[in-house]
């Protein structure tokens, strides 16, 4: 019940943006599984709320209009209760602490919600969430769809959180003017925060989200619930700094969309398989040298 209420409280904030995000490309439409290519261009009726869809995808209760097919993901239907005891969380089926996903998305200025949509620009999920076999056809496709929807749901929530924080601290406009690329971005002053995702909404396991907003980009780590947050936070800052430096993201002409190899190269070294690393300054420099040798700037 608690979660439901909480959702309703945020609804005012999330709904509007979620709907705005729905209006276009990556938004949610009736999932036309058999012919995905054609469906991508078809404009179906707009569902009520993306958050609900993600929840429905995770719980398998969404009824598609005009279809009496079985729910999308029946194997996820049994929601695990949020573990209240720290022991349960730490010693449950998945011990330990790792990063589940890393993503980069765009951040729109709070007053410019109508311009553009919330876009996931890059995402990397480390390993798949444990899911029992789904014998039905398109099981794999459904898994991928769910994964993408989960990531988009996280991106939207982060965008809302970032906008709310910016509004609260009186910085209504995200600094969009470009600085000269030589000047380092003050990452320690950039808006940042963390929030929790309850089990089943949108991931099966409870997760913690740590985010950092730099200019018009949001950098996000989705963590297991009991990860070392201090380490996660400094790793996220490090990743953001490396990405800004090595991809020269501050130069207007550059585009991270076509430079997945560099992003992957950075992640493979600094966040291998989602393992947070205790790297002191010299280790970071060593890895950076290795990186620069592979990709001359």
């Amino acid at each position, binding site marked *: 019940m608690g979660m439901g209420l909480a959702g309703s409280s945020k609804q*005012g904030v999330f709904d509007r943006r979620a709907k705005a995000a729905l209006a276009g490309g990556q938004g949610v439409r009736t999932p036309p599984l058999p012919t995905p290519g054609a469906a*991508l261009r078809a404009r179906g009726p707009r569902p009520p709320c993306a958050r609900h869809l993600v929840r429905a995808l995770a719980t398998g209760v969404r009824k598609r209009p005009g279809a009496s097919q079985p729910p999308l993901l029946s194997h996820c239907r049994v929601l695990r209760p949020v573990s209240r005891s720290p022991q349960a969380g730490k010693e*449950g089926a998945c011990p*330990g602490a790792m990063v589940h996903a890393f993503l980069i998305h765009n951040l729109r200025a709070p007053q410019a919600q109508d311009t553009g949509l919330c876009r996931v620009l890059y*995402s990397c999920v480390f390993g798949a969430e444990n899911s029992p076999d789904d014998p039905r056809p398109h099981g794999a496709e459904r898994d991928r769809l769910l994964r993408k929807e989960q990531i988009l749901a996280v991106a939207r929530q982060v965008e809302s959180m970032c906008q709310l924080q910016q509004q609260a601290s009186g910085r209504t406009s995200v600094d969009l003017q470009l600085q000269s690329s030589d000047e380092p971005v003050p990452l320690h002053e950039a808006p940042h925060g963390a929030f929790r995702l309850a089990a089943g909404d949108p991931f099966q396991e409870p997760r913690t989200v740590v985010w950092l907003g730099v200019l018009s980009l949001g950098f996000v780590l989705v963590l297991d619930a009991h990860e*070392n947050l201090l380490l996660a936070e400094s790793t996220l800052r490090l990743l953001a700094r490396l990405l800004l430096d090595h991809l020269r993201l501050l130069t207007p002409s550059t585009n991270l969309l076509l430079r997945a190899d560099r992003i992957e190269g950075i992640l493979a070294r600094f966040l291998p398989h989602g393992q947070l690393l205790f790297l002191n300054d010299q280790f970071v420099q060593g890895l950076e040298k290795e990186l620069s040798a592979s990709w001359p700037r």
Partner: protein
Amino acid sequence: MFTAGAESLLHQARDIRDEELKKFCSRVVNLLQKDELGPDAVDALQRLFLIVSATKYKRKLEDTCVHLLQATLCSPKCPEQLQLLCASILRETSPRDDLTLSCDHIQSTRQLSLVASVLLAQGDPKGEVRSVGQRVFRILESRQPEGPSPRHLLPVVSKITHLAPHTLHEDQTNQLSKRLVDWLRYASVQQGVAHTSGGFFSTPRARQPGPVTEVDGAVATDFFTVLSTGQHFTEDQWLNVQAFSMLRAWLLHSDPEGPSAPDADDRSELEGSTLSVLSAGSTAGRLLPPRERLREKAFEYCQRLAEQSTRRALRKGDSDLQKACLVEAVLVLDVLCRQDPSFLYRTLSCLKALHARLCGDPARVRTLLPIAQFFLNHGEAAAVDSEAVLRHLLTRTPSEFFHSPMLAFELTCFCRDNLPLFGRNLDILKRSFPNLFKLLAWNSPPLTAEFVALLPSLVDADTAVEVLHALLDLPCLTAALDLQLRLSPATSERPLWDPSLKIPSCLEASRDPQFQGLLQYLLRATASGTTERLGPLHRLLQPLASCARVVQCAQAVPTLLEAFFSAVTQFADGALTKQLALLLLERSDSLFQVPQYEAHVHRVLSSRFLALCALHPSLVVELAKELLEFVGSVSGIQGRGAMLASVVRPASLPAPPLPRRAARRGLRSVPTQVWAIGEYLSVSWDRRCTVEQINRFFEALEAVLFEVTQSRPSAALPRCPPQVVTVLMTTLTKLASRSQDLIPRYGRGRTGKPAGFPWVREWAPDACPVPDVRSAGGRLLASPPRFSSSSPTSWGPRSTCGARLQRTRVPSSSGSLCSCRR
């Protein structure tokens, strides 16, 4: 940067048709078949990655293309850039059924790690996790000094144990534990040699590498850890970093009492510890088994980290790492003590010293949380009272660091997750709710859900009234915290508040001793047991009410109020219910004036007032005096907007979202207090109800009805919503049915014609609810029921709720009412 160019690129990637993609795939195939893979191939693969990743729907890649991507990924000569791209495309399109990838013949560990990333993304339909795990372990076991470095494989092991904890055999687990001991404890203390390629500036003779240093530049005094530094690092030093990074997860995994036992959660900690004590005792004579040895070394490592974190780091990055290492060290110690209580006494002295040191260090306040967690977990077993630690954490930290979003989040989660462990210290948590509310007031968006879960544990019979006051004053608390920050000396370069909002008058007036006292009360750290009227403070802080942070907080309050009442109704007795109901009446007109806040809160309060009455129907009779005053004050106010709004939402305002439960029960916009009077002011609910009481209420309500329908001082004021009139009339009808004296006043006879209040007809001849009531009243009067003990009737807009009540509580004497309805 995200620009229009990027947006259009995304659109292009999405709009590519299947035929176009087919063509593009064949181009990729051509490029990948060449002997020399050049920049063209890189460019094509980058585009292919964008095309498959930009949409959430499946992209059909040609079989030959998929095959070549796998071949390129596994080819030993292929440059890293291309391998990364191939792996990311395959991962992005996974899970796939047509994967032929296997890691059995790959020698390079870096490549193996990439292939593993693709295989692990498949979700394990064909046992990929196990096969990767076995291959990785074969390489780890080979232990060739010149062989591939296991550095890239440890994260894979970590991931595998995370995804499928039962993949590894017992002997494999032991094997890795042994090697982790070597890497953790016996890494070289000499710096590595630079791998220069003999460039122009390289020195002709290789310099002898020096010893590793501490973060403050001093020569290392003991074994190598992640906090040891140097110019270059050896392979085993890299492995040391990897090993410590995965240590906690591995300890949890390799503990048989942990994940492999299905009922591990149910078993009490004490039982688990006894087992480990016995096993440790039986093996004391010979060399420790790998698992115990790893624990021993992990313990030494953590102690060394604690020692190293006292050094003053030369670099900012290292100083941050020190904090993260302290947190991890305490978390690892916690795991060790849970698995083997013999560590407990050694750990305690270390942690007590650490806590004493960290208490005075504001920069490391977040490291106090795992320490408090440790004391909560082990306080009882070690016969150490965690009270002092918790008291410090809960009374000092929130007041000083509420503005740090991460600390606020961590502390709230700490409280929420540890509720079962607080035990007799739960009282400290309950009493420090004003402090915890500061975290919520300042960071409401991410913390509302956490507090909804936390509230039921914070509320008990002693604190309920104070908590409710505090919840209603939450936006005011946000404003007060803002003011407090503005008044305190600047702590950071950037202001923590909204600098565009200037409030010179507020800052000036806050020095007034009258406000000082109220501010101190509002900003108290622990529950005081008293309540203060904060009206003057509301007026003082009014300029801050438009601040976005205050508005955000105000939006969270209705949700929190719902959670509060759901919790409180579980244990509230008659006395507490009465107190709360009084509080609702009293506070309905003394709220901080934030836009929309009053309306939203009133909706919750009114539905909850009715719910309280439903739980304790005699409430109306007991509160007769206060309710009469309340009703009287409604009629007494000239421009009755605000007060009337407490009874009902003005129909002219757009309807804000209703709490789901209220909407479900049909409680939309009802003057609940008045409704409650009609429902429960009856001898059938409470024997103490007298005719005089009913008459007095009737008169008061009649006056209200007259006023709301007749007097309208200015055309600018909204007309009274028809729902109010409806409910007032329904209530009057019900009251009239319970008293002989009222019949002549209510109706002019049993004519069947609309009776009662002729002025209402003039007021709203075509307002839709009114005719309903008139006919309802007419019907009722056409055959008057037994006046002494009428049942609660239900007409008007709240028929759903009324019907529900009627179903559950129909008095036996209601036969006449039923007959009159027919």
